[in-house]
């Protein structure tokens, strides 16, 4: 199975993290080297950094349709999610509201906080996402009430890529006067986002998911909503997020988002075309199944299951062929259970173990797609030969689930 000296190197796990662009690296470099001052310092060296910081804030705010003073810089998506939810929960308690509505397939950065709040007495309602991986507006309508402190539903799922009806969900929240947060970590830089048009009150984003640097992100909080700090101390970020500002990271994040949103429509079409070609090829593998709604999906994400094979082994053989992809297999997480996302859309355990997520970006090429399409079937075949389950399925001793 080892390729004969003609291995390509293909990075196709852009939902895990992305490769910083040349522009991003240059920006990071420039500001690390030249603009190292502390933005809280009053002398010129500090004020130049401060000006850069505010320039980045304006640019990013514009890209998501908010005001600069509605945007707070954080260390990434997880921190933004944690702060948004903790803050809304604390505010809710002050008004006697102790219910939070979310969905079963949110990112752990959301679910973990909700779990803790549940232990502290909050009522946590997780809406189902059905087989297609999409939250229903009616379900929110039924669940929301005047005890509800917060609704938090992700914009697009990180494993299957399904896009949620954010505008409509936000509309329901608005009508009920409930704060609406969305984890848009997978969406920002990949889909058009406008917090005002989409009725979003709070939004989390993370730079490394759109070719920016790691360790930097932001939280949008609509004016009028009181934000509690998660990391307290200095007066940075209007006293809502202490810590010397990571100006080089912030500038590189702004550069990354500028770039990502340039010609976004074309990029989305290009990436979707790559994804669809690959989907067509990989669907030819017998007993395979594409997961999630096919129409409302991030352009770059393809999540597909193969019966009779285990994800980690699949991922490692694929890696041997030079291709980086991920899996929702239990073995990839250290848990015994496979991905909660795949279980949330109703996949049986044994199928969920055999999932592969390929996430593309506009740097991927059709040549790479062809290479993936050639190599993945070989990996699946090889693993099926090894698999006692596959043998039983073939011999009819076990029934196919797909």
């Amino acid at each position, binding site marked *: 199975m080892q390729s004969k000296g003609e291995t390509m190197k293909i990075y196709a796990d852009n939902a895990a993290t992305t490769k910083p662009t040349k522009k991003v690296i240059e920006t990071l470099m420039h500001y690390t080297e030249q603009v190292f001052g502390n933005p809280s310092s009053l002398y010129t060296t500090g004020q130049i950094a401060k000006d850069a910081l505010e320039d980045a804030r304006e640019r990013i705010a514009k890209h998501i349709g908010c005001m600069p003073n509605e945007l707070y810089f954080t260390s990434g998506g997880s921190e933004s999610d944690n702060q948004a939810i903790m803050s809304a929960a604390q505010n809710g308690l002050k008004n006697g509201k102790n219910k939070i509505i979310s969905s079963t397939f949110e990112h752990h950065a959301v679910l973990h906080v909700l779990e803790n709040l549940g232990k502290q007495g909050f009522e946590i309602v997780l809406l189902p996402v059905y087989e297609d991986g999409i939250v229903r507006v009616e379900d929110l309508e039924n669940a929301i009430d005047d005890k509800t402190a917060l609704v938090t539903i992700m914009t697009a799922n990180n494993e299957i890529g399904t896009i949620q009806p954010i505008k409509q969900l936000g509309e329901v929240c608005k009508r009920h006067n409930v704060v609406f947060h969305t984890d848009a970590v997978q969406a920002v830089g990949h889909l058009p986002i406008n917090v005002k048009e989409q009725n979003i009150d709070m939004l989390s984003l993370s730079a490394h998911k759109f070719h920016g640097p790691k360790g930097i992100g932001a939280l949008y909080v609509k004016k009028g909503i009181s934000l509690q700090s998660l990391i307290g101390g200095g007066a940075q970020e209007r006293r809502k997020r202490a810590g010397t500002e990571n100006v080089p990271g912030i500038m590189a994040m702004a550069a990354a988002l500028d770039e990502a949103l340039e010609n976004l429509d074309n990029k989305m079409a290009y990436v979707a075309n790559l994804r669809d070609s690959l989907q067509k090829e990989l669907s030819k593998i017998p007993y395979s199944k594409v997961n999630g709604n096919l129409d409302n999906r991030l352009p770059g994400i393809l999540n597909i299951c193969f019966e009779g094979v*285990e994800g980690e082994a699949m991922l*490692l053989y694929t890696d041997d062929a030079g291709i980086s992809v991920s899996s929702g297999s239990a*073995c990839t997480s250290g848990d015994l259970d496979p991905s909660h996302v795949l279980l949330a859309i109703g996949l049986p*355990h044994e199928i969920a173990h055999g999932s592969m997520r390929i996430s593309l970006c506009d740097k991927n090429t059709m040549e790479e797609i062809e290479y993936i399409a050639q190599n993945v079937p070989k990996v699946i075949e090889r693993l099926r030969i090894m*698999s*006692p*389950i*596959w043998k039983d399925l073939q011999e009819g001793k076990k029934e196919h689930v797909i």
Partner: protein
Amino acid sequence: MLYSEKVFDHFRFPRNMGEIADADAIGEVGNAKCGDIMRIYLKIDNEVITDIKFQTFGCGSAIAASSMATEMVKGKRLDEALQVTNKAVVEALDGLPKNKVHCSVLVEEAIKEAINNYRKSQENKAE
């Protein structure tokens, strides 16, 4: 790296992978829900394992542990084979990540299961 060179070697080039059509005994442990199934096929002649094959549905270390364990017991007498612990397999693989040690336990169990099945079938024959 995720695994030692040895693990990768056995994962990439698994020894004794496949099935034995006329096996004297078969042992299987695990279930697909948990993401690990191992099946061991044995050929036994005069209490000695003359041939062994495995089929594994599982992660890289499950495959590597299967490969390594089958190598270690092949040619051994059954009572010797029963002495091969999962610890020995892990050592032979130059270690496994902590959360993967259970894979080596599974192989040990699968081999024991196969030998037990063999013993039982022998008893049945003897009766």
